[in-house]
């Protein structure tokens, strides 16, 4: 676990940035390149209900139907064990959602935080909430309004994968974007 934590120092630094609006704003121009699909004109925010559809499928839909601002294809971001900071590789995804929300003020998203089963159920409920809160902060920094976002934590109570192994746990440590 030590190794894991060390490898996450960078992630935590980024999270620290995310909680500082001034720093974040200054950094914004440097970190361009949101998800390619986001800048591409594509389908209107079709009834995205469940957060579980395959990203690949959504991307191809986006490419096929050029129109106004696209809803980002990726609808989940994942986290390492016992970590609540948005990971560097997921920042572009979150920023693309922020951009989408800023261009679609009528859209609302619910961020659903989840955790794997390692930990007490109450601790994991708290951890899922922190994950959702951190995604929310980055969404707001990326242009979304607070009124467009709600957060909820399911902790370890609604696992996507029920195995007791890292492959399952990795899937369960995530925040889903659910548009209404």
């Amino acid at each position, binding site marked *: 676990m030590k190794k894991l934590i060390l490898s996450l120092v960078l992630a935590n630094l980024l999270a620290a940035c995310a909680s500082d609006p001034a720093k974040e704003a200054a950094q914004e121009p440097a970190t361009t390149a949101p998800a390619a699909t986001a800048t591409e004109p594509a389908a209107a925010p079709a009834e995205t209900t469940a957060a579980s559809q395959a990203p690949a499928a959504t991307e191809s839909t986006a490419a096929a139907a050029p129109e106004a601002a696209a809803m980002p294809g990726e609808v989940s971001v994942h986290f390492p064990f016992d970590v609540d900071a948005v990971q560097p590789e997921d920042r572009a995804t979150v920023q693309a959602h922020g951009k989408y929300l800023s261009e679609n003020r009528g859209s609302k998203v619910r961020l659903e935080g989840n955790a794997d089963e390692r930990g007490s159920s109450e601790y994991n409920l*708290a951890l899922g909430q922190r994950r959702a*809160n951190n995604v929310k902060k980055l969404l707001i920094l990326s242009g979304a309004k607070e009124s467009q976002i709600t957060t909820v934590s399911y902790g370890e109570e609604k696992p996507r994968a029920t195995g007791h192994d890292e492959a399952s746990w990795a899937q369960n440590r995530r925040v889903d974007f659910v548009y209404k």
Partner: protein
Amino acid sequence: MRGWLGLILGACMTMSAHATLDIEITGAGEHQTPISVVRFGGEERIAGQPISSVVSNDLLRTGLFKLIDPAGKAPHEPGEVRYVEWAGVEALVIGSVRQLDDGRVEVRFRLLDAVRHAELIALAVTAKSDQVRAIGHRIADLVYEKLTGSAGVFSTRIAYVNREGRHYRLVMADSDGYGEQTLWSQNEPIMSPAWSPDGKQIAYVSFERGHATVFVQSLVTQKRTVLADFSGSNSAPAWSPDGRQLAIVLTRDGSSQLYLVRADGSDLRRITFSETIDTEPTFSPDGKMLLFTSDRGGKAQIYGVAVEGGFAERLTFEGGNNFSPRFSPDGKSFVYSHFNGGTFYIAVQDFESKQVQILTPGGWEKKPSFAPNGKLILFATESQGRGILATVSSDGRVKQKMVAQRGDIREPVWGPFLKQ
């Protein structure tokens, strides 16, 4: 304790399910009292588990007794006991059961000192015919108390969550896991049941409103009320020993923090101000202190804070993460779930010496809570991929697993002594 004492058990819950449990006991106490529980006269004519087996199973589970087979001898009255036949037995439980004309059941029992040839307890109990198990637990309590000097907990209840797929049930059961009664069920998660000190209410977390909300349910009327439903998560209820307030955890101001609230939901006060995760509060028996889980030091550890808030002292320093603290009833130690190397253990730590004792071999062992007499600890573990109930004696010597017929058992908590 001479003569027959009359006792009528109050009307209890109905709707008990007859769940079958597989109970496995390992280990033994340092000193075991040899005792023989004789089949009660007429018990085979009463439906349900024979009362003598309820009594002997209760005593066996403590690890403090060695059950001696009566080897065919079947006295039901003191006059029928020939003490020369009971060499090696220190205590003898005899009795009889009979159906009364009004449909009720009368149970008579005696505890005999087989060494001094003396009667220690004589008792007659009348109750509804579906209360035979409850009478058996009461008899076991009296025997336990007389022979060990500690209060028995066999008549107390436990609560837990049973999950089957997406279906969740809040369940109350006898301390031995039998007599399950469903208090609430739904297709949304239920978490963190907590008994009120008088045993008449249970607070818990339900997701029926789409997010974690704290409910309080009366076990007398079954009425449910919302204690806390702020934005974000409302969770981890814990009652103060006087029952007048609860500690809860809210995320309405960001990260999970501890709050106090009166039992009627009024007078909300924030206690911790950490910006990290603070959760799983639990009151000390004197009501002055809270233990809780926090990751303010980087990883989940146990901390203590005065009920009015202020400086929080870190109490656990063991490697790995520590969760779910609960005070012992005497306030001298606390039990918690210790996670290290991918394994959860049940550990107990003494406040004064700070000494830590790992009580269990390790596994998926979570959510420990003391029996109200402090002698046993109930927790959740896993067997063949399913959550089950388990107990360990507070000295770690005797372990017990209870495998229910179906479902995944989570979040068990031992209830208080019930006032007679």
